[in-house]
């Protein structure tokens, strides 16, 4: 433990000591211990590596590090051996000894744990050569794999808090705001509002005090980059907020984080304690006049609290209902004081802009959207995970080059971006360059960066109904257009999925959508029709098939399909009979089985287990 540091110079010399002590050639093993890999058993894996290392007498020779999320969650738990950067996947505790020995003595790479290219079947040893990583630009997210989030020294050693040093030693608050403005950084939470302008407005606003908020109420289903940043690199958020505090003259900040993210809360809590002990947070940061306190607030599980005014109401201990924003929150926000709220990823971009400079930052991205964006690439895709790409990359590059395409030879149907308020884009738009404005023009939006890939088995009417139901449950109920509109849309869409849709339903959905867009109080309501409108725009034929022919083209809507067993194809192996939870299947061994449609729950268990494609869906 070091003493409280009282000047930027002190931090600088401490960093060079840390860097001098690290031997770049010493073998070290990074084990991903993010939430995704933990669900695959990463915690046991870390224990196994530690005990094997002790048993093999390698404690001095090989360094071990439990890091945050590396991104390729599909193949977790992930283990990377440095300095070579060899990436092992789906590693189990039984592999620990072998990996340790290989790392220590530089033996042969362990073939069976390597990434295999789905097309060429070629084994790829090094992380940086794997297509999933090769086509990314991991500016913000890249440090995750290099540091142990519970050790502040790890962050300092890779250059952490350097931007804070620079700001305190060389820049005026005005210059910081100017830099952020010129960088063109836009809010990563979804709104895309220019961050620098927001900061400037907050700095100018009059009030007793100013508050900073980090919005980590990542409620968009299918998006988890904010959680992975908070878990894997909490100090970069703290550093970003400190720079903001200096620029906007704020003394108090809050991180509002979802209660469903326990690991993020614990890693951030520890990071705050460490930063305080080092004199990087609290009174007189690094001996300067900057004083900044940071607190964590856990959310109560309400999607609408991701909306800025609802979040502030929740911070004040009230129900999270938004208010009309005639007066912006930068003027009157938390406790009616000027408040600047940015999302996790936005804060994480700040130190990078300051440290690497505006010229470098603006060289990445498109005219209207600078820098990179982290997306969570999930759904029907081979390599699921978190990807960071420069703005302006096409959807096709993300889906096929990085994500490896659609599994099991099925066809791509749509990609959903922007969370529940976003839209579904069809195959014809795969070459769309992604940035804030282009996505909006196409009827979707950037949102916080969820990208859900859908294949031919996903019904688009059902998707629209899914999002409408989601929002219906999450609507706070304050304004009528959102509360009632979603209720009605939900009923209409359910009716269509159940085969009871009427011809006028499509027109009715469009009329309801227009009313909600024009009259809802906050953006939850005014963007809620997006999933309906975008599916109507690109997949109208599916709606028509449901309404006119009572048919679900994707064979997904339960009320429009039935299951049966093809006696010609059935070998009588009994697999379906054993898995059926409803006991709807009967038959003798080696004779064709029979399925009783009256008992069938349509759970698809038989369909998934049948190796002979004898279970048919009609």
């Amino acid at each position: 433990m070091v003493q409280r540091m009282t000047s930027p110079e002190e931090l600088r010399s401490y960093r060079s000591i840390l860097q001098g002590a690290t031997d770049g050639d010493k073998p070290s093993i990074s084990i991903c211990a993010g939430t995704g890999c933990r669900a695959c058993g990463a915690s046991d894996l870390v224990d196994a590596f530690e005990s094997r290392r002790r048993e093999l007498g390698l404690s001095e020779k090989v360094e071990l590090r439990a890091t945050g999320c590396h991104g390729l969650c599909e193949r977790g738990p992930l283990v990377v051996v440095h300095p070579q950067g060899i990436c092992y996947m789906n590693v189990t505790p039984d592999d620990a000894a072998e990996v340790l020995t290989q790392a220590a003595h530089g033996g042969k790479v362990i073939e069976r744990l390597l990434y295999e290219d789905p097309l060429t079947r070629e084994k790829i040893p090094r992380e940086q050569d794997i297509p999933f990583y090769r086509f990314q630009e991991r500016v913000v997210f890249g440090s995750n794999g290099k540091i142990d989030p519970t050790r502040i020294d790890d962050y300092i050693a890779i250059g952490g808090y350097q931007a804070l040093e620079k700001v305190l030693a060389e820049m005026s608050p005005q210059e910081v705001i100017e830099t952020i403005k010129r960088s063109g950084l836009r809010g990563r939470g979804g709104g895309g509002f220019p961050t620098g302008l927001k900061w400037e407005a907050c700095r100018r606003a009059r009030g007793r005090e100013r508050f900073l908020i980090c919005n980590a109420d990542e409620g968009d289903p299918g998006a988890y980059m904010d959680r992975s940043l908070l878990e894997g690199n909490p100090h970069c958020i703290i550093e970003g907020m400190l720079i903001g505090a200096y620029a906007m003259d704020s003394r108090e900040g809050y991180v509002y984080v979802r209660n469903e993210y326990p690991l993020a809360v614990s890693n951030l809590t520890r990071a705050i304690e460490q930063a305080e002990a080092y004199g990087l947070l609290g009174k007189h940061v690094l001996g300067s006049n900057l004083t900044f306190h940071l607190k964590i607030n856990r959310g109560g599980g309400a999607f609408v609290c991701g909306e800025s005014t609802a979040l502030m109401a929740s911070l004040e201990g009230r129900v999270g209902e938004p208010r009309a924003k005639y007066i912006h929150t930068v003027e009157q926000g938390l406790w009616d004081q000027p408040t600047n709220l940015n999302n996790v990823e936005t804060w994480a971009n700040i130190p990078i802009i300051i440290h690497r400079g505006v010229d470098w930052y603006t060289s990445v991205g498109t005219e209207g959207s600078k820098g990179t964006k982290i997306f969570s690439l999930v759904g029907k895709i081979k390599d699921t995970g978190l990807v960071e790409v420069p703005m302006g990359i096409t959807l096709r590059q993300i889906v096929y080059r990085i994500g490896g395409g659609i599994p099991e030879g099925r066809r791509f149907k749509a990609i959903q971006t922007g969370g529940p308020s976003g839209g579904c884009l069809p195959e014809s738009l795969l070459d769309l360059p992604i940035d804030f404005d282009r996505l909006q023009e196409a009827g979707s939006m950037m949102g916080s960066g969820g990208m859900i890939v859908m294949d031919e088995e996903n019904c688009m009417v059902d998707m629209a109904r899914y999002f409408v139901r989601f929002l219906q449950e999450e609507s706070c109920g304050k304004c009528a257009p959102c509360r009632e509109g979603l209720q009605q849309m939900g009923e209409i869409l359910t009716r269509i999925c159940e085969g009871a849709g009427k011809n006028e339903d499509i027109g009715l959905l469009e009329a309801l959508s227009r009313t909600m867009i024009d009259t809802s109080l906050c953006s939850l309501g005014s963007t809620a029709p997006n999933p309906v409108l975008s599916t109507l725009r690109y997949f109208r034929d599916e709606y028509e098939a449901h309404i006119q022919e009572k048919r679900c083209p994707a064979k997904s809507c339960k009320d429009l399909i039935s299951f049966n067993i093809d006696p010609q194809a059935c070998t009588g192996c009994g697999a379906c009979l054993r898995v059926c939870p409803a006991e709807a299947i009967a038959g003798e061994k080696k004779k064709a089985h029979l399925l009783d449609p009256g008992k069938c729950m349509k759970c698809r268990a038989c369909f998934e287990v049948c190796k002979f494609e004898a279970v048919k869906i009609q």
Partner: protein
Amino acid sequence: MDLEAIRKIIETHGYQKASLIAILQDVQAKMNYLPRKALLQISKSLDIPTARIYEVATFYKAFSLEPKGKHTLRVCLGTACHVRGGARLLDTLENLLGVKAGRTTRDLSFTLETVNCLGACALGPVLVIDDRVYGRIRADKIESILKKYR
């Protein structure tokens, strides 16, 4: 009903009205639900009308006014899990347990809940039992998983 424990929770939050949500979270964590008596006591100690506490307790999903079962099953209905069959998983569980989402089985052994996204999207569809995450669940695996908890 441990009223002393509740007093302590309120005390650690410094009797702050703004900490209402955090206090309720701590009570819920300790008691597994929000008993009526606890809400009345919080109301008195913080000088907040009971109606307002009730408003907060029913607005946020994290709170429950009813006792929960011994094991909590949470089915992720995030988008990524949905496209991989999360809703079907819920259907099957509802059928097997004989309760709808949000309810507790009569023998108080299971509470079936849904959650909007756990951020384990790569593993969808995801089922969480207590704190253990089960990924890539197929209908045919459910019975054997439930057996461990029966």
